[in-house]
């Protein structure tokens, strides 16, 4: 296994680490993996998961590039930054350019954790070199069943009075936040940002997210989604994804798994090992199956 850390991009302000196997120099791989940031954590990933993944992938001769997007980890901000989402997409496309130039690969998959899953699917919408996505804890859309299951769990954990007390406190907090927003808007002030959910400040409507995924599926992108057990109030049963997207025409076309014993940030070795095994087998299967080759590259 070899690793090489480089600056890349037009301003040479982005930094990434290539990890690849011991193949003969000049050998080209047919599939590469892009690993981005999870939230504001550096490219090694929460509890080092990107590092572990990259080294595991190199053992099956799949090269990877883990990188820091602008302003995160070791990468600096560009002189003329774009709005956050656009900059994230641009940085990811520049990372794909870098990996392509280094390894001669034209097809890529991206493994994205949390907000990295957002970056992955948004970039794939613009860059046909991304032929596969593994999304860890992407947006969650609770269902009636998930709410009922959570309520049952809370009663079991806290007893009925405790669960009711906790529920009332949460409802009061949500109501207070709504009142604050309403008051600010009535006074013509900027409303405070809504409470972040799933470590994000914005969740698109389910129909919008489903439409984006459908667009990618129609293009032949292989999408694998894994939900952790880290949001038991919102995602808590194996086929919830199917219920969330019932009627959207995507549920049967996406491989979705639920790992109830893994937390969102993959703290334990067992959850890291489970994820790495799934990811490596998935990447290996994509390589064997042969994904559609991207059209001639139109860089960012």
């Amino acid at each position, binding site marked *: 296994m070899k690793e090489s850390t480089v600056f890349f991009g037009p301003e040479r302000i982005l930094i990434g680490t290539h990890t690849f196997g011991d193949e003969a120099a000049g050998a080209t791989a047919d599939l590469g993996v892009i690993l981005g940031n999870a939230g*504001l954590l550096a490219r090694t990933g929460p509890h080092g998961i990107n590092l572990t993944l990259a080294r595991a992938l190199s053992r099956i001769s799949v090269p990877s590039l883990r990188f820091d997007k602008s302003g995160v980890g070791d990468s600096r901000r560009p002189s003329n930054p774009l709005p956050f989402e656009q900059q994230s997409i641009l940085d990811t496309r520049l990372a794909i350019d870098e990996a392509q130039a280094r390894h001669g690969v034209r097809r890529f998959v991206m493994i994205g954790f949390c907000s990295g899953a957002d970056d992955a699917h948004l970039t794939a919408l613009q860059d046909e070199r991304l032929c596969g996505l593994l999304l860890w804890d992407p947006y969650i859309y609770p269902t009636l069943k998930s709410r009922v299951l959570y309520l049952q769990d809370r009663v079991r954990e806290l007893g009925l009075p405790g669960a009711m007390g906790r529920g009332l406190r949460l409802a009061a907090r949500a109501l207070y936040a709504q009142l604050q927003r309403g008051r600010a808007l009535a006074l013509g002030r900027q409303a405070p940002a809504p409470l972040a959910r799933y470590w994000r400040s914005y969740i698109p409507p389910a129909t919008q997210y489903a439409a984006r995924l459908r667009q990618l599926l129609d293009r032949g992108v292989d999408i694998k989604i894994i939900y952790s057990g880290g949001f038991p109030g919102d995602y808590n049963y194996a086929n919830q994804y199917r219920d969330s997207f019932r009627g959207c025409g995507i549920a049967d076309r996406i491989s979705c798994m639920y790992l109830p014993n893994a937390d969102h940030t993959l*703290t334990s070795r067992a959850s890291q090992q489970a994820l790495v095994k799934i990811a490596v087998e998935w990447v290996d299967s994509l390589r064997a199956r042969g994904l559609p080759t991207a059209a001639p590259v139109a860089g960012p």
Partner: protein
Amino acid sequence: MEHLIARFGAPDREMLGILSLPDAPPGRAAWLLCNPFGQEAVRSKQMYRILAERLAREGCSVLRFDFHGTGDSPGEAVDQSLGDWISDLLAADMCLRSRQRLAAVTMHWFGLRLGANLAALAAQRAPRRPDQLLLWDPVLSGREYGEFLLARHRESLSDGMHMNWARLRRESGEPEPSLPGNVLGFDVGAALAADLVRLGPPPLAALLNDGLRIGIALDPDRLARMQLPCGAALDPIAIELPIDWTSNDAYGAPIAPQQVQRAVLASIVHR
């Protein structure tokens, strides 16, 4: 300002660092930034970049690096010890001095958490001592630090799974963390675990006797409890906003605390 990838160290202990150089050499001072351990290094990465950029803008040459077996440096985490990392730190110091011909400039070492202890211990062994140490929130007892990591592992999983530790153990079969072992996703081998048990507070008195200037930042409670040696060369700093560097998210805490930047810049000015 220029940023370069630096690869250095003995062939069997290679390391990766980033060298930040000011526009106008020779530099005003040189800074070696020493990482903390494990998740604390992941969480503080951005702060180290911001510090390096700020110092380079002030005319300083800066090297930040990953110890062998950590971060983007090669090697296996499970094989490391504090002694190995002290040697790595001295190799990083040599790299910084040799790359920039810094014989004449003052050398500062900054370390956060376990990185602060490593800097203090390495300063005792250094053939060429640094002029100044800035030790931010150092570990005062390695045994307690080990217990802290184990506790944070349990808390992180409990918080992450929204259930108490006993239930998590019962229902998920989550193993009790231990040292040596894997804590917060990072391997601690037998040698490092044994070193931690023996680790005490930074040897301030000995370093002051050797003529070093030392800044030490601790939360106010620990600062009040710690018996600091006297001397004008020791600058105690009360941390205004204690930060849990093992967390995955800022949760409203600053990514790069202003107080750290102020202290770093002040130590250049006061020389």
